[in-house]
């Protein structure tokens, strides 16, 4: 399996930049989450059974994002939460930034999967952040900021998991 992270960035960036409404942006974001979810779901049988839980959790988390964005699009009430979220930004801890990204290969180990997922979230976060910076004030900017925060949050959670699995020997220790 080829890692498509890097080259995917500019393409999707342009795609998003042209969108002008919240709904349009969310549609794209939803499609990204769907792609990610499908990617992880497809990966599940390819990894050794002992670490399958990692990929399953990743797929599940992407699904949650998918649901969240879909919900956001359809439900105006939820939009209030969007504003609330923007006011509590999540900081990027940069903990995993120096870990080298390698190809997933046919039979990736847990660390490779985590690093891959982290890189993916990092890219998404940065992309939304850029878009938010370049967007004019208003709903559009807010939406991008929100998405950036969502991705940052996911990255942070993954980093905690990364610390537990790689740096301390396993979860719950």
């Amino acid at each position, binding site marked *: 399996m080829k890692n498509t992270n890097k080259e995917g960035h500019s393409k999707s960036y342009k795609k998003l930049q042209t969108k002008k409404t919240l709904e349009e942006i969310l549609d794209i974001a939803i499609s990204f989450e769907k792609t990610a979810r499908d990617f992880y779901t497809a990966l599940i049988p390819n990894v*050794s*059974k*002992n*670490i*399958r*839980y*990692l990929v399953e959790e990743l797929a599940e988390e992407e699904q949650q994002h998918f649901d969240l964005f879909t919900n956001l699009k359809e439900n105006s009430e939820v939009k209030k939460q969007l504003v609330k979220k923007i006011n509590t930004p999540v*900081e990027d*801890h*940069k*903990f995993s*930034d*120096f*870990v*080298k990204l*390698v190809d997933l290969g046919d039979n990736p180990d*847990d*660390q490779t999967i985590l*690093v891959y997922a982290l890189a993916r979230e990092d890219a998404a976060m940065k992309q939304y952040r850029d878009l938010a910076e370049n967007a004019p004030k208003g709903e559009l900017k807010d939406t991008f900021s929100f998405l950036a925060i969502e991705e940052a949050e996911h990255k*942070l959670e993954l*980093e*905690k998991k990364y*610390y*537990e*699995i*790689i*740096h*301390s*020997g*396993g*979860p*719950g*220790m």
Partner: protein
Amino acid sequence: MKKIDYRDKGSILNPLKNLQFFARKPITEKLEPRPASASYRGFHINDMDLCIGCSSCQKICDNAAITMVEVPSIKEDAAKGIRNLRPAIDYGRCCWCALCVDICPTSAIEMTREYVHTCDGDDTDSYFVFPSENGIHDLKFAKGWTKTEDSDLLDRIRRPMGEMKPEARINNFDEVVDGFTMEMAVEEASRCVDCGLCEDACPAHMHAPNYIRSIYEGNLEQAVEWMYETNPFSHVCGRVCTHICEDACSLGRVDENGVKNSQPIAIRWLKRFAMDNVSKATIKHIAQKGKTHIKSGKSVAVIGAGPAGLTAAFDLAKKGHRVTVYEALPKAGGMTRYGIPNYRLPEDRLDQDIEVITSVGVKINYNVRVGTDISMQQIHQENDAVILAIGLHNGRSTRISGSDNKAVVKAVDLLRMIPQGDKFIAPKSAVVIGGGNVAMDIARSMARLQMKQHNKVNVVVSALEALGNSFLADDEEVSESLEEGITILDSRGPKQCVISKGRLTGLETVNVLSIFDNKGRFSPKYDNSDLQYHPAEMVIEAIGQSADITLLGKDLIEELDWDRGRIKINDNGSTSVEWLWSAGDMVKGPDVINAVADGHRVANDIDSYLTR
């Protein structure tokens, strides 16, 4: 003073002198309780949060006035040494001597200045009092008798453990600590209040109060007997145990509202003392106790001759089963041999533990790597049950840039080489990434080799965690490392291994701003602008470890159930595959005593499986 003459006839009018009292102001005392003095021994109060339920008050009570009562709403926490027992006092027996106050290890129980209690007729129930922070009548009275440093009855301070001076120990792998003398051991043992919190906290539930008592009585053989009831790795645990027991010890509680300075009993060192002072022959004899001579006809294979595997093997062999242990490496002990340096655990001590275990009839096949030399299927076919206890022998890598250079090595691999006797040339300078005990082990081993070979120590430990706060290694490991000339750079995150022309030149790190999130979960946060460079000929990664499960083969991996990366086991160590059990580090994480406990659990379950 006026002398009174015996011949004094006085005057019959003498009493009349007292008529002057009509002119004196009468003394009137109000008929109400007078405030008691500041150190009055009145009714008890008990701080429920400070109280740990150790029941020392009950033991010292000379009138048998204290009953320990179970309070279900208090959460028990064996590892922290908290029981849900609290004292209730029978004021029909109490004599207000305050010995309970003076012995309380945590200063939870105290006395107030309240001293009046009345009740109707036969309402004697009101004499049985369950003191809380508010006292008998829920009235806030000022404190009376509380413990002072003078009145404290407990011996709070440990007997110091002598150790080699840094200069003396830095160029060799001799054991650092001296161990107790008989006198010191007896004194240390005498400090014990026999609360048993240690026993509850110990994963293997070692009968620490019993063997401490035996040591106190000078009966070391009996102490060893107590130890072998629960732990065939008593030499090992006497030296390198994580001593959860000592964290639970009621004498180790320090609290800003309670006792300011108190040290737990050196349970681990006492165990070491007893083991070192009983002959191998006697220990072998003790280990035989309870061994059945009836052969069950069943056979069990154990994969991995570490503490978990061998404990299970020990138990099963004593129960009459034929036990074969497969060990990939040339000697037994697992991580205790190939992970722990000699200066902490001399090999001959470990050898003795192993020898005792094999003496009950455990057979170990060395240099047999399952999956390569013999297949899992074959083992399964030849045995009724199989225990997988292979530990965590794969070191994790940071996978930062340059970490694939051959001068970047993993600590577990290096540690394995040192006792194997490999001729290892230490680098003149090394950086260790990691802040746990493994990092300290390799750093200190490296320092010793450097001193031996180059006469100069140059080891830097770079850890994410902050010293004195989140640092993972034990305090004594840190302080001893520092004494040995090792530099510890805490709160540093590895950025890259700097490679120049294919050669490693050093490690670049960034600052770690914080380590915990607001829920106390590890979540390191980097400041990439704060860069540091540590030149080194070698970078040693000592972060996490994982189990090498390839020996299972694809099919078995697929057949087994897993739990977040580890083989899923039930409470008895049984996996989802009927004939397979798993124990030790690979399922519970690295800890010797946990592995021993696991070994017992698995052995018990297998025994009942085989004899059902």
